[in-house]
């Protein structure tokens, strides 16, 4: 980490030492502990079919992600304000482009395939929204007024619309939660927030009862409520729940989980990665992974509180919300607490876009942490 840090371009006027002192090392160590656990779980889920392939790829994503994290950390987050328009427009373009030339898989059309690697712009859009929303609700003057709220809704709405066209419903849930978290902390009046939540709930129920969603999407969203209604979907979720439940306190042992090794749980290396840990390492393993996630969130929360300005604080809150909803939805889904949506477990699920996005998110938080002292000049 030190080495990576030292390679990062230095921000003018500040010594490397000062920067390193303000790095949130415990946050980084939690991340560094969690990702390898994820890689081991990925190996367990894929070793019979693919051997070590996925381990290599995830390891590579990890290294790339760490590099980007270091890079982003070293940049003063306040500089991002100047590029907001560029970031947002690039995000929009990527999302439009992926609809045109993207690859389709599993019913969603949201992948650029480059040199055998798939890039999922909807993942990176999460971070764009974090920064854009944080910027909207901060400034040298003014207050949290209707204009800002409408602007935020518009920013999220436009991106969500494009992502909906790709069928990436899971990502939209994350966007919504990021918005909610930032609105909450930014100080949007409680009644406005409640009104928005209510409106959102009505919209979701309308969506579910209309023909907008494909059957499989509706099935996935409702199967956790009515287990018998959608055989295949609820079958998957029951298998997943069974895997978690049968793990018991200490699990079946690494690479020994029958549900995992015999392939009963679908999409196991990505969306259902938590079942591998819970089945093979039991409650202890599951609790550790959840605990690491909690500690990561706790540190981000802390950085938010210590941030030198509201922009930094809201960036952290955006990243916090992003991780919180993903952990909740993903782990909840494997235990039949939440409906099935294709949301990866941060740092753990297999997938380059997700892992790199998560690590860049940590980079943003580190940037806020590093540049938290009032004396630091703005670029």
């Amino acid at each position: 980490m030190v080495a990576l840090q030292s390679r990062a371009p230095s921000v003018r006027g500040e010594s490397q030492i000062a920067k390193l002192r303000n790095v949130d090392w415990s946050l980084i160590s939690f991340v560094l502990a969690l990702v390898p656990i994820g890689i081991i779980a990925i190996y367990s889920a894929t070793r019979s079919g693919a051997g070590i392939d996925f381990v290599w790829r995830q390891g590579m994503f990890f290294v790339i992600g760490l590099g980007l994290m270091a890079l982003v950390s070293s940049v003063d987050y306040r500089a991002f304000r100047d590029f907001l328009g560029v970031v947002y427009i690039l995000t929009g373009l990527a999302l439009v482009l992926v609809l045109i030339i993207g690859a389709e898989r599993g019913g969603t059309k949201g992948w650029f395939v480059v040199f055998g690697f798939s890039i999922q712009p909807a993942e990176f859009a999460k971070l764009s929204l974090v920064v854009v929303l944080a910027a909207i609700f901060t400034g040298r003057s003014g207050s949290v007024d209707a204009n800002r709220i409408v602007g935020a809704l518009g920013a999220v709405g436009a991106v969500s619309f494009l992502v909906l066209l790709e069928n990436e419903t899971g990502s939209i849930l994350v966007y919504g939660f990021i918005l909610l978290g930032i609105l909450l902390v930014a100080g949007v009046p409680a009644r406005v927030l409640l009104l928005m939540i209510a409106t959102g709930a009505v919209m979701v129920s309308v969506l579910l009862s209309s023909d907008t969603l494909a059957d499989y999407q509706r099935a996935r969203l409702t199967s956790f409520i009515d287990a018998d209604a959608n055989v295949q979907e609820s079958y998957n979720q029951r298998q997943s729940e069974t895997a978690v439940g049968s793990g018991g306190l200490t699990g079946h042992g690494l690479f020994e989980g029958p549900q995992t090794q015999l392939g009963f749980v679908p999409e196991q290396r990505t969306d259902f990665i938590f079942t591998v840990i819970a089945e093979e390492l039991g409650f202890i393993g599951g609790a550790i992974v959840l605990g690491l996630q909690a500690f990561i969130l706790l540190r981000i929360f802390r950085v938010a509180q210590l941030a030198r300005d509201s922009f930094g604080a809201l960036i952290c809150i955006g990243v916090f919300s992003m991780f919180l909803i993903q952990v909740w939805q993903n782990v909840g889904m494997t235990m039949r607490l939440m409906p099935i949506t294709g949301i990866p477990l941060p740092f753990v699920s297999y997938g380059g876009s997700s892992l790199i996005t998560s690590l860049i998110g940590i980079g943003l938080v580190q940037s806020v942490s590093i540049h938290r002292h009032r004396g630091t000049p703005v670029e």
Partner: protein
Amino acid sequence: MIEIPRRRFAVLGFVAMLVFGSLYGKLWFLQIMSATSFEQTASSNREREIIVEAPRGRILDAKGRVLAGRRESLVVTLDWTSLRDLDAEERSEIFAEVSDELNAAGIKTKTDDLVATYDRAADGSLKPVIVAEDVGEQVWILIQERAYPGFQVERRWVRTYPYGDIGAHIVGYTGTVRSTEQATELNADNPNKTYLPGDSLGVAGVEKIFEQTLRGVPEVRRVEIDAFNRVIRTAEVLQPSQPGADIHLTIDIDLQFAAEQILADELRLARRREASEGSLPHVGEAGSLVALDVTDGSVVALASFPTFDPSDFVFGISAEQFEFLENRQDNPLFDRATRGTYPAGSTWKVATAYAALTTGLRTEWEIWEDEGIYDIDECTAGCRFQNAGGAVMGPVDLREAIERSSDTYFYAVGAEAWENQTQVGETPIQDAARLFGFGEASGIALPNEAAGRVPTPENRLEEFGTDWFAGDNVIMSIGQGEVAVTPLQLANAYATLATGGTRYQPRLVDRATDGESGETTLEVRTIVAADEPLDPVSLAPIRDGLFRVTTTGTATEAFTGFPLDTYPIAGKTGTVEVNNRADFSLFAGFGPGLSPKYSVAAILEESGFGGDAAAPAVRRFFELLAGVTPTPEAPLATEDRFQFERPLIPENAAVPNTDGGVDGDEGQEGSDATPATSPATTAAAADGGVTVDPVDSTVPEATQPADAASTTAPSTPPPTTPPPTTTPPTTAPATTGDTEEPAPSTSAGATQEAPDPAEPAADDGASDTAVGGEP
């Protein structure tokens, strides 16, 4: 500057705590509080009980040679349950890929066939269905590697029939349990044998009758499977497999082979023989030969020709192939020996003679003036019965009547029996026939045996609703009319004559032995079906007459050269006429002499006189039994066995003049290649030339056993034989009138239906034609 209200942090923090609280709570609930029940769910998820068919017992001949065996085969199977969840498009992609792979490996597979197999299995097959058999290790590795859903390579036990079509009607064949319903039905009767659809099941022959003995106890085991229903490992064996018991037959496959070859050969010769005047050309494409051990009823040979190869059924015969076999005019699936019913013709006269002597209608010395015709007394229409060709034999007694096969002698007995029924009873001839076992199934251990028919006024009325007349008795007295017997019954009747009244249930299976230890688990005892001693005084002259048949009677030519002085044979020829078909040739006899060991009967369809076709066939079989000619070794199916022409050669095929004398041995004496003039001699000549013994039987001087041994020592059959002929469609005229049912399920393959009681009848030797009619 917009400031963040600090309280809002607390709200978000609270939300986060709720989130983690719910996740930890659920995790605790699942893993700590409900772990046991989820563990059970997980086990039932991945564990299945599977039932693996045990190796089927073998069928062996008397010398322990394997007639129906087994081997393990690598087969590709399709499990529809793993494919049903896929959508049709994915499925057809998989089918296309698998068939490409199999074709690339040299196993011809059509995608459509896979689809069809899937559709059939999708009715509820519990067991993966075989889609390709005998695949190599290559395919195994390939299929396992690609892990196509639903496709696996397994080892399965597969039936083998090493001798191919030899004895096929006895051995039978296996099919598969077709449906869940059929399996349920079978399981109701045999709880521990657990049939599943796709299991093999005997459907014909001994395979069928001894299904319960042959089928082993399947292994039941608990296995671990993966999400694609693939077996990962065996967790526990709940019931060990127990192979089925082996069945030991009484037949000797060499003799069986010889019987079939003799039949084929004699039929071929019959086809080439010119039919007598006024008779239809000999079609000669089917027949049977049965040999029994008269001392205990053991079956020595039971040949039905043409035959089929049971191997065709091993992996499930295709519908087209089965249809072809079933609809072939010569009906190869039909076991003529036990299911074919024929008019007995003159072979029946032993019953008439026995009735005549025991009722006192005749004495053995009483002379009858054979004028070639017989008129029923006090008769108004259709009362004249005559010998064919108007043969007039002059004065004959009982012995001579049998020897020369005088019809009028027996017509008279028949007519008088009817006239004097108040003294002799209504059915003395029929009663005598029943003593010989006619009219009832012999009880042999083969499915669907025919009972034949002994016509009586009673069953005539029952079945046809018409009355019985004197003319019916007349026709019946020479085994025509409604008389129907199977070749097996015929052989058993003559065995009864040989024993003097003891009639056995033909014994085809000797014992069953445990598949593992070899210990005898079932001994088939000799079963006496009837043990009423025949009147020795009446029997003696009948036997005398039968012995004369082969020496000076209707079968003299056929037995010329046979060492009758050392191995006397009693027998009777029969020639029956069937509507619109050439004469059927019959012969039944026993030997040797007065302490007989064997009885042999042959019926050759549309082959001419009894003395011309059936008698030489029986004679040749007796040569083997008597040791005059060595019995050739039955070849395994893999060997080239086409040393004899196949049954359906084109009728216009050139007849080489080497027909008779195939033996190319140098210094061979005898002139068997000399074209013969009379049909009988042709038969005899070809006899020796083409079949088991190339030399001796053709040359009367060379029939001494010693000579036989010296000249026919070569153990391999003569090599110079007609090349294998591809089988053309039969050109024979319609063989039977009973086409309303597929043959294997009916007992009437070559049966004369005989709805017309006054059907014209004919007889043998000096063939005679009865001009029957309503008296």
